[in-house]
Each structure stands twice: as structure tokens, then as C-alpha cells.
């Protein structure tokens, strides 16, 4: 037996549709299903083996690789930073937290304690994060990122939505730029051909809407393992098997049928007993924390969806009374899984997972996001991107200047008698000064200075006695305007804007400060005329 692990890095959102949400919406699973990985590899295999006819099941190698159960394609779960457990696993449903605890610090495992043992101030509520990695009693919780897109159906010939063809539908997909760890369990003889299929091209398309902006994923870090434990390196089965209880945790959804062929959602006692070669009556269920899910799928060959069946949801926990177990039987149970569609990663189980320390409480953390580099981002000098970044920084800086101007104007008011005609005169001159043809349509503050210097005595008195300022400090309008004109950048205390290493500040354009000073004079004069 051999194991191949590899990383799937999503370049575009992935549409792995589950049966959730409204009829007009597609909601993705929180992971990449094994069936999807298997389907993509079948596609690659058939592309190179064109001599296989329509009935691909007639080919022995196809059967062995993809259908017989010799090779199992497990679900790809979120990648962790833990070396001992790079693939996160579904959070056990026996884990509870104190309601409203934010940030989450403590988790209580009710499979190993009673509700009555909890402190009286703890109100138990299931943990909402779907995936976890465990290191002794430290747990890191993970949640996948999603992207919601809304699409409109268009009429094929009219090119737009019409009354009969124009439904709005919603795709809730796994977001781009996330990493998932995928696993293939295989026989040694199949390893080489699977390696060739994976190495053929590092770009692979998974899920729905592949031709239209969804599903692009990159394969990387293909590794082979002689021995591999699904629950992590430091939890070998030999250490887990001898415990006070016999506990089963589902690491993926499990599809079960009863003796009448009906799909059922109940503890898998009969199947477990058969797998461990014991009498079902020996398996005495002590506790169960389980939930159900509806499972479907899509067969591209048929062009049809698969039948919908109920299943026991991943993370379900069953605790039985202790019994002596055969190591090889338990190994086979963990390798082959239980129930239906185990080739596609359904029915994965872990025996006595998290039972090593006998602790019923875990301390939790959320994955930290460290910057991938501490170097300041820098674009090649003179490149189109650098020019665009500079332009963006400039626009942002100007927006900040406008915001500053608005704040300044709202804080100022004018007291004293100054007529609207004088204020209008000031506004007209300031507007003219914004684009002086003599200076090549640049702002010219000198024009305002000249106006103030050449006013007739009556008007000059008005500018001298009327005061301007905020609630605490007020000074004559004439004096204030002269101050602004002498030092136009004095009132602008805005830090430079930097985008992708390209900075922009007042010093890069000498016309900015005079321009915004003139705009400030105009805005204050206008405000005064209205008051």
C-alpha cells in the first residue's frame, strides 16, 4: 500500500456544488471532493488513451485505477502549517465551546466528559469552524474562504435577459488563492501511472463552470509515502488502539444502506462489526454525536446528476464500550473505510482519534496570517504597472486633499460684517487664479494678493474687521488669506500615499498646494455668503 499526497492551490473559485441553498443557487462543499479529483484524472487518462472505446469500464486498467477500490481518492481538505498534520480534518461533532466566547479559547470534548461536568457559567454550543488540526491538547481551527457571485441568464440570440429567460442565480464557490491537501491511497503498482497523470500538467480544472472563470487549480508538492496516517504522524494506530473506550470519528461523509437496500443515517454498528470480525452485540454504543447530510454528484459521461442520498455527516463521533481489537483489522478499517463510494473518499474513519492524553479540554487558536515577505513591494521602474500604481497613488492623494478641504471648511466660519458682493469678488478672482493663462494654465496665488492690495477703503475695512476661524481662534480674513498665500501647503497635513511601492505627496506636483488653497478660499467665501 502506498500514499500520494499533493497540494491543490486554487487559482480561480471552485464550484463543488452541494445540496444547500435555494434552487437558484449553487453552494460549494467546504472542501474539494475526492470524486472531483478522480474525475479530472479520468479525463487526463482518457486523453492519452484514445483507443479505449465508449465503455471505459471494459478496460482492466481503468477499472483498477478508478473504479475497483484499489485506488482511493480522498477529499482534499484545507492545508495547515503543521508538519505532523498538513491536511486539516473535519472538526468532531462532540466538540463544544462556550456560547459567545470571542476569541474562542477553550473547547470541551463531550465524548469524554458529561455535560454536568462543565462549569455552571459555560453554555455549550457546537464549534462552528469546520476543520481543525490537533497537536496534543492544542487545536488550530480553520474555515474555508468563499466567494459569492451573482449571474444573470441571457437569451442566446438577444444577448440579454428577457422575461422568460433571465433568471438570477448565485454561485457560492470556494475562493481563489487557498491551498488544499489531497490524498490518493493506492497499490504500489499503480503509483507510477498516477504520478505520470499528476505530473502531466500542473494546471488542472475542477468542478463546475470550468470554461468560464471557475475551477483553475495548480498541483504542487507531489509526495509519496510508504506509511501514512490520516490523523497525523504523531498519532500512530499502535498508540491509539488500547484505550478505555472504543471511539470512531468520521473523517468524511459516510453513505450506509440497511439490509433492505434503503439509505439510512444511523450508527454503523453492523458494518463495523463485520469489518472488525466481531459480534454486533459486542459493540455497545455509549454516546453518539452525529448529523446528516445530503450527497449527490454529477456524472459528466451521462451529463446527469447522481441520485441524491442521505449520509452521516463528517465529524460524527460514536463512542463504544472498550473491547479488544485486532490491529490488522483496525488498520484495514482505517485504510478501506466503511459504506458506499469509498473510492471517492466517502466513509473515512479514525479509531480513538484525540484519545492519547485523555484530556477532555483543548486550547484553541486561529491560524495566523504572517506576511509572505517583509520586503517593501516594488514594481520595475518605468513599467506600465509602476505608472498605474503612481497614478492610483495620485488619485488617492487628491481624494484625501478634498476630504481635508471639506473638514477645514466645515470647521471655519466668518464673523462680522462683510457683504456678499465682496465675498463674490473674492470667489471670482480665486476662480480665475486657478488657471492663469500667463503661467500655462497653472494656479496663480498672486492674483488674490493683488486683489487684497488694491481694494477701495470701504471694502478693505470689511476684509480687515470681519474675522474668520474656528470656535477658539479667530483672526481677520485678510490676515488669514495672506497667511495661506504665503505658505499654501501650511494647512495641508496629509501623509504621503504609497501603493505597491510608488509614493505620492505634495512635493511631486508644485501646483497642488496653490490649487487646493484657492479652492479653500472659494469654499469658505461661498459658505459665508450662504450663512
Amino acid at each position, binding site marked *: 500500500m502506498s500514499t500520494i499526497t499533493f497540494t491543490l492551490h486554487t487559482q480561480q473559485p471552485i464550484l463543488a456544488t452541494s445540496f444547500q441553498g435555494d434552487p437558484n443557487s449553487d453552494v460549494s462543499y467546504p472542501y474539494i471532493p475526492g470524486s472531483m479529483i478522480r474525475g479530472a484524472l479520468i479525463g487526463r487518462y482518457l486523453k492519452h488513451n484514445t483507443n479505449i472505446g465508449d465503455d471505459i469500464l471494459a478496460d482492466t486498467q481503468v477499472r483498477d485505477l478508478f473504479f475497483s477500490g484499489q485506488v482511493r481518492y480522498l477529499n482534499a481538505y484545507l492545508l495547515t502549517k503543521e508538519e505532523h498534520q498538513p491536511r486539516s480534518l473535519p472538526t468532531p461533532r462532540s466538540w463544544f465551546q462556550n456560547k459567545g466566547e470571542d476569541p474562542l479559547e477553550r473547547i470541551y470534548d463531550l465524548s469524554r466528559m458529561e455535560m454536568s461536568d462543565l462549569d455552571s457559567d459555560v453554555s455549550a454550543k457546537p464549534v462552528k469552524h469546520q476543520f481543525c488540526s490537533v497537536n496534543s491538547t492544542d487545536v488550530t481551527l480553520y474555515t474555508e474562504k468563499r466567494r459569492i457571485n451573482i449571474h444573470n441568464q441571457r437569451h442566446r440570440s438577444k444577448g440579454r435577459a428577457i422575461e422568460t429567460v433571465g433568471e438570477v442565480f448565485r454561485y457560492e464557490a470556494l475562493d481563489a488563492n487557498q491551498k488544499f491537501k489531497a490524498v490518493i491511497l493506492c497499490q504500489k503498482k499503480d503509483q507510477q501511472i498516477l504520478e505520470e497523470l499528476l505530473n502531466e500538467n500542473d494546471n488542472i480544472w475542477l468542478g463546475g463552470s470550468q*470554461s468560464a472563470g471557475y475551477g483553475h487549480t495548480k498541483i504542487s508538492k507531489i509526495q509519496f509515502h510508504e506509511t501514512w496516517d490520516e490523523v497525523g504522524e504523531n498519532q500512530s494506530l499502535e498508540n491509539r488502539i488500547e484505550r478505555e473506550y472504543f471511539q470512531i470519528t468520521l473523517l468524511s461523509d459516510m453513505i450506509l444502506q440497511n439490509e433492505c437496500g434503503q439509505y439510512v443515517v444511523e450508527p454503523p454498528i453492523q458494518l463495523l462489526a463485520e469489518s472488525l470480525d466481531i459480534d454486533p452485540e459486542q459493540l455497545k454504543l455509549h454516546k453518539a454525536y452525529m448529523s446528516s447530510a445530503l450527497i449527490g454528484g454529477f456524472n459528466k459521461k451521462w451529463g446527469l446528476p447522481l441520485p441524491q442520498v442521505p449520509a452521516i455527516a463528517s465529524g460524527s463521533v460514536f463512542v463504544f464500550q472498550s473491547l479488544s481489537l485486532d490491529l490488522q483489522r483496525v488498520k484495514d478499517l482505517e485504510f478501506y473505510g466503511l459504506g458506499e463510494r469509498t473510492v471517492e473518499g466517502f466513509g473515512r474513519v479514525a479509531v480513538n482519534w484525540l484519545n492519547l492524553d485523555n484530556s477532555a479540554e483543548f486550547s484553541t487558536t486561529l491560524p495566523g496570517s*504572517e506576511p509572505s515577505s517583509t520586503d517593501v513591494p516594488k514594481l*520595475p521602474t518605468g513599467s506600465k504597472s509602476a505608472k498605474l500604481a503612481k497614478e492610483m497613488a495620485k*488619485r488617492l492623494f487628491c481624494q484625501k486633499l478634498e476630504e481635508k478641504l471639506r473638514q477645514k471648511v466645515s470647521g471655519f466660519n466668518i464673523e462680522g460684517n462683510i457683504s456678499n458682493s465682496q465675498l463674490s469678488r473674492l470667489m471670482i478672482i480665486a476662480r480665475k487664479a486657478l488657471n492663469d493663462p500667463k503661467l500655462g494654465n497653472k494656479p496663480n496665488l498672486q492674483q488674490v494678493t493683488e486683489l487684497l492690495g488694491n481694494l477701495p477703503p470701504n471694502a478693505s475695512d470689511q476684509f480687515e474687521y470681519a474675522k474668520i476661524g474656528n470656535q477658539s481662534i479667530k483672526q481677520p480674513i485678510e490676515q488669514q488669506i495672506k497667511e495661506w498665500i504665503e505658505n499654501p501647503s501650511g494647512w495641508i497635513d496629509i501623509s504621503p500615499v504609497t501603493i505597491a511601492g510608488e509614493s505620492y505627496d505634495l512635493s511631486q506636483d508644485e501646483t497642488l498646494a496653490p490649487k487646493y488653497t484657492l479652492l479653500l478660499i472659494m469654499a469658505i467665501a461661498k459658505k459665508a455668503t450662504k450663512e
Partner: protein
Amino acid sequence: MSNYFINIELLSDTTFGRGDGVAGLIDQEVEHDSYGFPYLRGRTLKGLLSEECDNLLCLISDPQRHWLNARNSLLGTAGSTTETQSRMHVGDACLPEDLRQAVRLQFEQEEDAERRRGSRSITDKDILSSLTTFRQQTAIDSKEGVAKDKSLRSSRVVLRELCFKAPITFNLKPSDDSQKILALLAVSVLALRRIGSGRNRGRGHVKCTLWEQEKNKQLEEITTKHLRYFEQETKA
């Protein structure tokens, strides 16, 4: 194996709609990513190319149905089976990758600084507002000649002169006529001149071109080359 790209240059302000707005601010928001960069969805772009391609096929004589087969290989047909699937994967049309990577790194560093200092200097809203602006419009009452009541709407527009690039990947079968498929894509790309909301009202005027990048070679524009082949083949 070659990589192909569609280059979209905005000749007028454009709204890549996303079907929602921001309450109290705008009625129509543009599609943008988590860093604030506007983009055109691959799904939308494929729909637009499909429409242009269908319009062109209506005009040419194709008794042997060669062009129709090429169209079906290029864009796929209804139904999700392996046989009817499109051979082309259209990616989102985005702004330059190096700029987005640099901003992504800057955001990571800012988030780290925010955790330690409690403040950050740039947000996704800043990036979006540095690449877009607002447009307001009303409806005019045809009888009165004045603005209709409650008809004022505002929408965000992506600024003209920006260039977006969408990656195109082919997954051709040996039986496919690759020259016809590429020619059909090139003419559809060239025919695509209006994109986004309000494209029949002045917004969304674009110039699209098809580019090829062979391994270890420079990016080369191939629209004209394939247009000539299309002209030659459809002349008769």
C-alpha cells in the same frame, strides 16, 4: 504549448456590474476582488464572446458546417457532458498581475502592522476608489421633458484607459481544427466592442485584441494574422 490572452483596453468609462449596490452610496457597484481591484468575470467574457461569435456565424455561408463545428468546439454546447464541453477556459480579465501581487503583499504587511499598532494606511476601498469614479443619471419624462421623480441613480465606473488581461487556455482534441478555432476566437474578440452595463448608452467602449505567448518568446499580437485566415476562408 502556447498561452493566449485577451487584452481589453477601456476606451470609455465602464461598469462591470455585479448585480448589487451599496446602500446609501451607489445603486450599481462594479465587480471587484477582496483587494479592491475591479475585474471582468470570465463567465461574463465568455458570454460576450459567444454572442459575437454567433452573430458572425449568421452572416457567413457554411454549407459544410465547418465553422459551426469549430464554434461548438470553441464555446461548447448546452449540457454538461464531456463531449459538449468547451475546449476553451476563459479566465477573469484582471489588471496587471505584478501590480496585484505587489498590492497583495502590501495588504499582508498592513494587516500585520494593524494587529500590532491598531491602524492601517490603505484599505480595499482606497484601491477601488483610486481606479473608479461615480456617474449619476436620471430618466427624462418624454412628455414633460424634465427628470422623472425618484429616477436618480448612481453607478460606479471603472476609469477609461485601463487595460485588463484575460488568460485563455485551450484543451484541444486531436480531431479539432485548431486554425479555424483560433480564427473564430480572433474575429469574435475583434468584434467585441461594448462591455458591461449601459454599453448601449456610451459606457463600456473597449478595444479587444488576442495575444499569444509561446514558451521563451515574447508576447505577440495574433488578431490580424487569424483575421486574414478567416477572411480568406469565408470569401468564397
